[in-house]
């Protein structure tokens, strides 16, 4: 095993990396609204069902013209949404099943059309739809100097050496040598990303309302379902722009994973979009590098880059699930632990206060263990001693004056709540203790002019 190795090569890596990046950013942006509206799987369905649209467009246009492909995919995308709605409404079928029926049938149709002889001998096969052909985007003649970088023709492509034609016979003696510009797939992707940003930027307010409350959007007077269809058209467009380069599986992953990961990081939409773009960029670049670097540790050949980007998106999501500072498992476990400790501390102080009320200011540890069990007692005692609320002397626990005040405040809350529940809420006195036991840990308390609780015990005065 050796160190992971990745050598950036302009000719081999620039455009594949750029294509992956653009596809990830475009899909990641749109995905935010799919995830929020809980229709992520519409992205899945559309990216399956654009297949027949593409093939039919191809058959009609008889070429891989991006415009024809785009129209075909957009029509198929809208047809998917309409068909799913129709099956749902006419057949009263639940949404998941309706989606499943529609996209699997359309995908099967696409596979069948592709496999049919007419399309077979052209370069459009089902595998490339799934995995893409990132690796074919290499640059035959990369830039050699900085001068070239700033020349437009470097990017648009030009003829280095024109073809040599025999003037008498008209026969091509040697074909022309081109400098290849930016690959068409990358240009298409860039246009798609710009269009997606323009769409989201112009309609941000509307998309935001529709994402959180479509009914409100409709009552506010703009057409939420028209917006929905527009979003679906963009998803279809993103799918078709991406599929050739990165394949539909990465499209699905990038529509869902970055937005879902971002959703774990923040509760604000703008921040979520920013996070999702960051994750999309990280997953595409990281995945691309890992596709070469990780197998190189064992001296193996690179793996599929689009697949590797998908896996990177999954890894980022897993990381966020565990360590997100807002909703991560670790943070939540720490929060739960702190809450448990603070509840145990409250229980300990309340118990000591009750003992003190009955004329027993010093309580043996063992008796407390019956009230606050096990490890929680250790933590509560530790906390209480650190905050100077109790003293531990020779196995006897006693409240300090501050501890007495704090314990009194808890007991006051407990008994005020009991009084409130009996007097104002009409709960019978023997049912109020459990509820009060929970409410005593929260700051607000009922403001009642009572001196004793329903069980006849004195309510400690407020401090």
């Amino acid at each position: 095993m050796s160190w992971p190795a990745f050598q950036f090569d302009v000719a081999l890596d620039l455009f594949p990396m750029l294509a992956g990046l653009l596809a990830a950013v475009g899909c990641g942006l749109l995905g935010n609204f799919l995830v929020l509206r809980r229709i992520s799987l519409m992205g899945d369905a559309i990216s399956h069902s654009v297949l027949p649209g593409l093939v039919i467009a191809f058959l009609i246009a008889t070429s891989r013209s991006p415009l024809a492909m785009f129209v075909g995919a957009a029509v198929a995308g809208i047809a998917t949404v309409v068909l799913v709605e129709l099956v749902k409404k006419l057949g009263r079928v639940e949404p998941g099943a309706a989606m499943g029926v529609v996209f699997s049938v359309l995908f099967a149709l696409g596979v069948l059309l592709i496999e049919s002889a007419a399309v077979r001998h052209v370069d459009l096969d089902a595998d490339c739809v799934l995995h893409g052909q990132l690796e074919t985007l290499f640059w035959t003649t990369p830039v050699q100097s900085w001068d070239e970088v700033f020349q437009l023709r470097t990017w648009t492509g030009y003829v280095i050496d024109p073809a040599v034609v025999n003037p008498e016979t008209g026969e091509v003696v040697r074909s022309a040598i081109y400098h290849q510009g930016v690959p068409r797939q990358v240009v298409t992707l860039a246009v798609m990303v710009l269009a997606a940003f323009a769409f989201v930027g112009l309609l941000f307010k509307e998309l935001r309302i529709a994402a959180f409350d479509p009914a409100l959007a409709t009552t506010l007077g703009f057409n939420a379902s028209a917006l929905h269809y527009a979003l679906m058209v963009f998803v279809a467009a993103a799918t078709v722009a991406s599929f050739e380069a990165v394949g539909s599986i990465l499209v699905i992953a990038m529509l869902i994973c970055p937005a879902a990961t971002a959703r774990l990081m923040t509760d604000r939409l703008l921040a979520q979009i920013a996070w999702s773009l960051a994750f999309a960029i990280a997953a595409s670049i990281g995945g691309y590098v890992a596709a070469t670097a990780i197998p190189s540790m064992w001296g193996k050949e690179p793996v599929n880059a689009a697949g590797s980007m998908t896996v990177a998106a999954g890894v980022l999501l897993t990381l966020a699930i565990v360590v997100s500072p807002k909703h991560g498992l670790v943070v939540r476990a720490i929060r739960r632990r702190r809450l448990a400790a603070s509840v145990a501390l409250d229980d300990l102080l309340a118990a000591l206060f009750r003992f003190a009320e009955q004329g027993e200011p010093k309580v043996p540890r063992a008796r407390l263990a019956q009230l606050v069990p096990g490890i929680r007692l250790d933590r509560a005692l530790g906390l209480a001693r650190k905050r100077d609320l109790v003293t531990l002397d020779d196995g006897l626990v006693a409240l300090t004056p501050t501890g007495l005040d704090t314990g009194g405040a808890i007991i006051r809350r407990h008994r005020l709540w009991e009084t409130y529940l009996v007097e104002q809420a009409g709960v019978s006195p023997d049912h109020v203790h459990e509820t009060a036991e929970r409410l005593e840990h929260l700051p607000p308390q009922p403001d009642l002019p009572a001196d004793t609780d329903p069980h006849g015990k004195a309510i400690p005065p407020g401090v």
Partner: protein
Amino acid sequence: MIDAGPSLVETLTFRAGFNTSLVVAGTTLLGLAAGVVGVFAMLRKRALMADALSHATLPGIAAAFLAASWLGAEGRSMPVLLAGAVFTGVLGVLAIQAILRYTRLHEDAAIGIVLSVFFGVGVVGLSYIQANRADGSAGIDAFIYGQAASMQPSDVRLMAGIAIFGVLATALLLKEFTLVAFNDAFARVTGWPVSLIDLLMMALVVLVTVAGIQAVGLILVVALLIIPSVAARFWTERIWLLVLLAGVFGAASGYLGAVISSMLPRKPAGAVIVLTAGGVFALSLIAAPARGVIAASFRRLGLRLRIASDHLLEAAFERGDHLLSRAAVDDLATVRGWSTPFRVLLLFRLRLAGFVAGSTKAGVSVSPAGLARGQRVSRNHALWEQYLISDADIAPSHVDWSVDQVEHVLSDELIARLEARLAERGISVPAPAGHSS
């Protein structure tokens, strides 16, 4: 004519050579099992979870291949690959449940994440095999789209065995599955092991999915699980019939799809099978008598006709003339939005029911029976109006404006009170003769 392939009839009747017959039999059994098992996936609203599951089998297949060849065994052995598929398929379902349990993400996102990430891992695995192994991944990537034609007799036997097991298990556990699918809360409080039954249901889905990936491919196997049961749902409201029909639809799709694809060159069986199932679905959606679109629109038309004829008779009664003039009918048609063909149908229905004696240029002649009906409608209309004005706060929630049911919905006492209130407003609505209220 020497090397002409088997004819359609020969293939349909299993006389087209051993291999073709074997494949046809296998996909038929698979369709049967997928249809039967899929019913419960559909009823539990797990259609797309099954999709995620089938995508999640790909990394297992790649890993099993690598592991087996690393240990020196034959990597392409079907039981080994399918075991790997089961393993990651189940892992995928567990991952969905973990995401739902431990994060704030919703089911759609969880399914999409597992589907794409697991499939991505599988794609990476396949490309690794392709790039780094001399024998390549040939035979393994066939799992993505399926390759029924290249199945070995032993593969078909394995698939058939799993399918038969799935059908038998469902038949044995039909009662338990039904209970959990329709009312899991009730099942739980009556002491059934709901989680275990649920697990068994899911296990059967996993088994059928794995059995199907070789024949129809892992992207499309979910279609075999969902489509037959959704199609069968249009035909019946009874669970045993639903299961039976879904099985029949699935089997028919598998059978016809395999036969058709074996007849045509380069037609992948999986896609043809799914399209056949899609055809069954479309037919059911349109023509099924229980919930199909045609049946539903006929029922809606019937209801509209009944309401419209009541409106017409009511108008005739309220004008106090058995002859409803043409102008009056035109007015009604404008207000109620009746189209001309609808008016023709309406008059036909009224004559058929004996409410209209005849219609001429002058207008429609309503029969005594029609006038009595109109009187009843008019009375009910007035009573309802009074009811909504004075007693709407106790209106039962599901009453429609149906003429026949008013007396059944409201008590005699309440109707008497409404009549009294109407009388106070100077409105009298006597019941037609021979009709007691």
